[in-house]
C-alpha cells in the first residue's frame, strides 16, 4: 500500500491506524477512507435535512426566528 492512501485514511479517521492496517492494499485502504467519508457526509446531511423537516412543523410566523437561532 502507498503511504499516501494510508495518510488519507488516517486523516478520515482522525486517529492513528492500527498496525495491521498497513498490510492492506491501496484499493482496500481507499475503500475504507471513502466509506468513512461518505458515512460522515451522510450523517451531516441527514441531520441538516432532519432540522429542515423539523422546521416545517414550526408555525410559519416563528419559523424564520427559530431558523436564525439554530443556524446563526
Amino acid at each position: 500500500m502507498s503511504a499516501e492512501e494510508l495518510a488519507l485514511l488516517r486523516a478520515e479517521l482522525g486517529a492513528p491506524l492500527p498496525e495491521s492496517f498497513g498490510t492492506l492494499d491501496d484499493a482496500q485502504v481507499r475503500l475504507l477512507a471513502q466509506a468513512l467519508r461518505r458515512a460522515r457526509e451522510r450523517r451531516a446531511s441527514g441531520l441538516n435535512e432532519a432540522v429542515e423537516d423539523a422546521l416545517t412543523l414550526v408555525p410559519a410566523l416563528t419559523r424564520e426566528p427559530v431558523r436564525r437561532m439554530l443556524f446563526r
Partner: protein
Amino acid sequence: MDTLRSRAETLKLARLLDVEPRQLAFLEELPVEEVRVFRERSVAALFDDAPEILDRIAAMTKVLPAGVAAGIAQKALGPRLAAALAGRLEPARAADIIDRLPAEFTARCCHHLDPRRIAGIMGRLDDDIVVRVALVLADRGDHLTMGRFVGHIRDSALVRILPKLDDATLLHTGFVIDHPERLGHIVELMGEERVSSVIASAADEGLWPEAMAVAAMAADRQRARIASLTAAQPEPRLDSLIRTTAEQDLWESLLPIVALLSEDELRAVAALPALRDPAVLDGLVRGVVATGLWAEFLPMVGVLPPTARRIVATAAGALSGPELDALARGVDKEDLWELVLPLIELMDDTAKQRLLELPVFQERAAG
C-alpha cells in the same frame, strides 16, 4: 474463535459505515482486536464531529418539559436527529424524554445512537420501556442494534425479554454482542431447557457458526454446559454441526468446545457419520495443524472408530514437510506423545519414515 469474532466485528463495522459486509470481508484477515480498535475510532470520528447546530437544539430542548420535548422529538425531529440529540443531552435528561416516547419510535432512534452513550442512558430507563423497545427491535430483525444494547440491560428487564425472543434472534444477537463478558450471565438466566432449545434451533436454522461464537464467548462453566447440551442433541443435528464446521473451516471454534466433553459424550461425537468422511477428516487435520489445537484434538482421535482413525493417520501422513514438522512440534510442546503414538502406528512406512526424520524426533532420539 478468531474467524467468527472477525466475521462479527466486520459486520459491526459495515453497519456503522453503512456498506455491504462483503465489501469489508478483507478485514477478516486482520487481527480482530485491531479491527475492533478501528471501529471504535470510527465511532469517535463519526459522532464527535457533530454539527454545532446539535448543541443549539440540545440547549433549546433543555428548557422544555420532558413531555413537550418528547412530542417535538417524535413529531418534528425524527429518529436520526432525536438520536443525535440524545447523544448531546445528559443521560438522565435523555432517559426522561425517552420514557415518554412510543417504543416503536425509540427503537428507530436506537439504530442511530452514539454507542458510547448507551450505558448512561440504559441505566436510567424504566424496565417497561426497555422490554417494549427490545421487542420492537427483535420484530424489526435489528440484531446489530440489539447486540449493542443487550450488555447494558438490567436482569429485571432481561428475564422479561428473553422468554419473548425466538431462538434465532438470541443467536443472531449473541453473535454480535458488544459486551461479551455479559454473555455467561445471560446464558445462566436462560436456564438449561431454553439453552437446549437454542442449540436445536442452531442446527435446524443453519446457525451453528453463531452458536459456536456464543459458546466461545460464554464463561467457562456455561461453555462446558453448552458443550454437554450440544452433545445430547440427536445425531442428525450433531452431524450438521460437523458438516458446517468442515464447510466453513471452523475447527478452531469447535475443538475447544469438544475438548470440554466427558469421555462418553466424546464417544457419541466421534461416532458421527460426518466424522467418517475422508474430506471432513482431512480438513480437520489441516485445521489442527493451522491452529495448533493438538490437546483438544488428540483425545477425540483416541475414541474415533478404527476406520476414521486410519483416515486421520493417512491425512496426517500426507501433510507437507513443514506441516508435519508443526504437528510434531505441537505434540512435543504439550507432551502429547502418548496420544499420538497410536496414530503414528497406523501410518504407512513412508509417513513413519518422514516423521522419524523430522528434527524434533532426531532431537528426542539424541536427548
